[in-house]
């Protein structure tokens, strides 16, 4: 059929967005709405000695000024991290207290200490400036490399030396042995630049309290409204779950930043009860840079050993990770279980050991952002492979091929069991599409124009489809990571899918409809996707970690299985046939080999009219299912990047970018390719442009688009996207997930290309013109004799 699985169906949701009718949180307006503005710390670390709101209270339009002492007195709980990590000595992680409004201490620039509620946004913001906070400044540590140093300022009392955990994975002794026996060892120091996710829609919340019902409604920019409700209820004591409705309407991108429950949403809910007004807060971009969870920010030293055939003998990784001033919802898992288990990459390895120390710093919390842990791992592995190949005088593709895993399922030494893949074929496809054979000619031509041309690879694997609940639980996750769906066939035969997945750009309204249209052979227009509202959808764990297809869609499939079983029974009963002979096709439910048939909608009608159902059958045609995967899914890919560097300015142009991806079964190639384009561009952004910088005092130097470089249209080329499908055996559709691949695989491909072009490996991300020029300068200077 034209709209089934594998077809590039144009998006059903587009019309409202291209006509300006999308309804994002800030587009909503409640009766009796007032506005919140937060009083934020201008110091990175300080004791709060007092708050004087008397002047602010007298300002035009001000309704109330509320602080953390009132919040705490009302029983609002601290913000928590939902994934418990145990240090290698068996001790639990050191989680410091995080109040939505700070009471005793502020720990980063932007930490909220009070909120002003006023009639207009402008009045609230102006009055917030009039709240006088008496701070006693404390020494600051803003950079992770210094957080664990002797005498570093202590950020949380219960985290001595600012250490959150000292965690390990793998066999250190075996890895040391593998390295000792290696014919060649490559050592690499890499930094993961700190990023700000920057969904284009800033965060926003509108909270409404109904005092008659003692019920709250929260409109918010969330990737997972049910998780928001669960956490707001179970941990922050805002309201019990049945008295709290969370709605995530149209959401303008998330990329991880909208997974978490932030102080602002908690405060708006509480303030709506305190003031009996609907409370709206919408971040501006400056506030977003200051308060949205940041990402990455690692410093790593690693060694990889090879035998004389180029086979990997051991891989040892030492990483320090910055989690910021407080532990955000998933923060602890990102540099541990989303990182170290990916260190085997696409390669046969026996010996891996990874040690990760996570620290507090006086910076905004750091948490998951597109890829989350896997980009950090991939960058390390793939720069290591390229560097090692150069050091050993081997072709970097050949070194990879010698180490490729070829049999599946494959158990790595770091927890993961890869489901399916075909790494040689995807690299073949990438090399062919990128015309690697023609590269020397292109390099020579570029040289004639004064440009340095380079080519870099990245062959990578991800663990997606978060996650088997049991496995996640055994590794410390505080929740199960299944997904749920309800399939509702209406009496007229149209279908509604209620899913706990949330679309904020991914196109679920189309792709989820496609799997239904495919299964029941009905027009895609007759399927409606309902999501993003805890009052409508049964439950859900939301969208992140490329999980909507492998987990969310699988739940839909399971619910459709149940619907189909009932449809067969009804049709068999009505048509006086055996259930086994019933087939669903062409909008009909038929008895195979006969002309006996019911129209699809007649089955729906029969189910609801219930005049003639099989004995004992309940009326209606609506089924719910929960799906918990047995394993992660493992998308893989081969990326090839070609760059040209202007040696005079250090400017890098990405001239070609080729991706060959294995996402398992593809539901909608158009949408999948769009995900690749966007992911690769974020990866190019990390490699070339983006970096959050705090100075030594913890002041944010990149607090707007004037200083934080977002990828623009001229920074990227058209992309070549190739596919190769090895279906995952771990879910009914064989899908693997495609949302994060680009961001995971692209950064090392870009940096490998630049280092190839400039002939020096000493280059850190982001490879800004300044950084590349510096690297060229350093490489051209003779090294002084010692």
């Amino acid at each position, binding site marked *: 059929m034209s709209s089934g699985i594998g077809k590039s169906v*144009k*998006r059903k*949701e*587009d*019309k*409202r*967005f*291209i*006509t*300006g*009718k*999308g*309804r*994002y949180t*800030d*587009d909503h*307006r409640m009766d009796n709405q007032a506005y919140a503005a937060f009083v934020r710390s201008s110091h990175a670390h300080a004791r709060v000695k007092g708050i004087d709101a008397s002047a602010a209270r007298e300002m035009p339009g001000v309704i109330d000024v509320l602080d953390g002492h009132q919040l705490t007195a009302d029983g609002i709980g601290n913000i928590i991290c939902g994934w418990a990590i145990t240090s290698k000595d068996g001790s639990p992680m050191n989680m410091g207290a995080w109040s939505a409004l700070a009471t005793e201490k502020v720990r980063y620039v932007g930490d909220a200490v009070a909120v002003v509620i006023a009639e207009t946004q*402008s009045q609230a913001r102006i009055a917030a400036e009039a709240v006088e906070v008496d701070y006693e400044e404390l020494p600051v540590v803003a950079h992770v490399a210094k957080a664990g140093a002797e005498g570093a300022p202590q950020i949380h009392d219960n985290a001595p030396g600012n250490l959150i955990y000292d965690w390990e994975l793998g066999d250190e002794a075996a890895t040391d042995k593998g390295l000792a026996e290696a014919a060649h060892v490559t050592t690499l120091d890499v930094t993961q630049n700190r990023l700000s996710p*920057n*969904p*284009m*829609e*800033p965060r926003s919340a509108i909270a409404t309290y109904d005092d008659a019902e003692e019920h709250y409604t929260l409109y918010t920019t969330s990737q997972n409204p049910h998780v928001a409700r669960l956490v707001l209820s179970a941990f922050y004591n805002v309201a019990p779950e049945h008295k709290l409705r969370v709605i995530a309407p*149209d*959401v*303008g*991108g998330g*990329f991880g930043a909208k997974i978490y429950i932030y102080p602002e949403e908690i405060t708006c809910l509480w303030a709506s009860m305190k003031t009996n007004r609907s409370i709206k807060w919408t971040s*501006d*971009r*400056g506030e977003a840079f200051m308060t949205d969870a940041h990402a990455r920010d690692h410093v790593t030293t690693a060694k990889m050993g090879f035998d004389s055939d180029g086979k990997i003998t051991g891989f040892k990784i030492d990483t320090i990770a910055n989690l910021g001033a407080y532990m955000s919802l998933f923060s602890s898992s990102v540099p541990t279980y989303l990182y170290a288990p990916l260190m085997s990459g696409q390669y046969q390895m026996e010996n891996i050991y990874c040690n990760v120390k996570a620290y507090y710093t006086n910076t905004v919390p750091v948490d998951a952002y597109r890829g989350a842990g896997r980009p950090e791992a991939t960058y390390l592995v793939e720069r290591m492979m390229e560097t090692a190949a150069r050091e050993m005088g081997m072709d970097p593709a050949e070194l990879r091929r010698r180490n490729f895993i070829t049999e599946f399922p494959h158990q790595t030494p770091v927890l993961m069991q890869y489901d399916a893949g075909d790494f040689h074929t995807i690299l073949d496809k990438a090399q062919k599409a990128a015309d690697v054979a023609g590269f020397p000619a292109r390099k020579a031509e570029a040289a004639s124009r004064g440009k340095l041309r380079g080519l870099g690879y990245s062959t990578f694997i991800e663990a997606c489809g978060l996650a088997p609940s049991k496995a996640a639980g055994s590794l410390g996750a505080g929740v199960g990571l299944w997904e749920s769906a309800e399939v509702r066939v209406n009496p007229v035969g149209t279908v509604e899918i209620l899913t706990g997945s949330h679309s*904020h*750009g*991914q*196109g679920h309204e189309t792709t989820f409809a496609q799997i239904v249209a495919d299964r029941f052979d009905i027009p895609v227009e007759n399927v409606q996707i309902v999501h993003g509202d805890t009052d409508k959808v049964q439950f859900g764990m939301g969208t992140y970690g490329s999980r909507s297809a492998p987990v969310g869609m699988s739940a839909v499939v399971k619910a459709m299985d149940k619907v189909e079983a009932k449809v067969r029974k009804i049709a068999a009963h009505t048509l006086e046939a055996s259930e086994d002979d019933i087939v669903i096709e062409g909008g009909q439910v038929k008895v195979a080999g006969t002309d006996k048939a019911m129209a699809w909608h007649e089955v729906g009608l029969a189910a609801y009219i219930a005049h003639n159902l099989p004995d004992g059958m309940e009326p209606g045609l609506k089924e719910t299912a929960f799906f918990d995967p047995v394993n992660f899914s493992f998308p893989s890919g081969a990326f090839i990047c070609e760059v040209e560097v202007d040696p005079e300015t250090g400017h890098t142009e990405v001239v070609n970018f080729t991706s060959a991806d294995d996402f398992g079964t593809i539901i909608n190639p*158009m*949408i999948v*390719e*769009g995900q*690749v*384009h*966007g*992911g*690769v*561009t*974020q990866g190019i952004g990390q490699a070339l442009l983006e970096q959050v910088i705090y100075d030594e005092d913890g002041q944010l130097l990149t607090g*707007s*688009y*004037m200083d934080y470089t*977002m*990828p*623009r*249209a*001229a920074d*990227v080329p*058209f*992309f070549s996207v190739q596919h190769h499908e090895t279906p995952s055996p771990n879910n009914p559709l064989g899908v693997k997930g495609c949302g994060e691949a*680009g961001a995971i695989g692209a950064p090392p491909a870009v940096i490998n290309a630049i280092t190839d072009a400039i002939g020096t490996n000493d280059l850190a991300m982001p490879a800004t013109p300044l950084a590349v020029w510096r690297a060229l300068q350093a490489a051209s200077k003779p090294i002084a004799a010692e």
Partner: protein
Amino acid sequence: MTNVKMKVNGKTVAREVPDETLLSEFLREHLRLTGTHIGCDTSQCGACAVHVNGKMVKACTALAVSLEGAEVTTIEGLANGELHPMQVAFHDNHGLQCGFCTPGMIMAGVDMVNRYKAEGRELTSEAIRHELEGNICRCTGYHNIVKSIEDAAAKM
């Protein structure tokens, strides 16, 4: 407060607003035309792009009161009964994902095509990328936005 009168999407509107009201606030809060979005504070993201007297401006960086008598077209007013070719092209070419930057992208696309046609210049993909300097998208990697504008340019 000043009574500001302008023609928005073909209709004359008048509102009494504070002088500091930005065009973006005037459209979103006073006229409830919420298709014009705010994605930054520094006039760089372009989510608020609208046309004023036929020229693209950033609605977040213009005072409503300074536009007395102006003709303003927003994303809501672009379609004239049926969708504008630029809107169709964004749908056909998957030129949007989350949709937040999309109104600005479409308004920028229409503006550049009109300008290049008026000046008799060829709107190459390279030119499109350069013209999009003031519009930031975080979802699409621009690939399909550029394709959309190329497609629409051929049909406008």
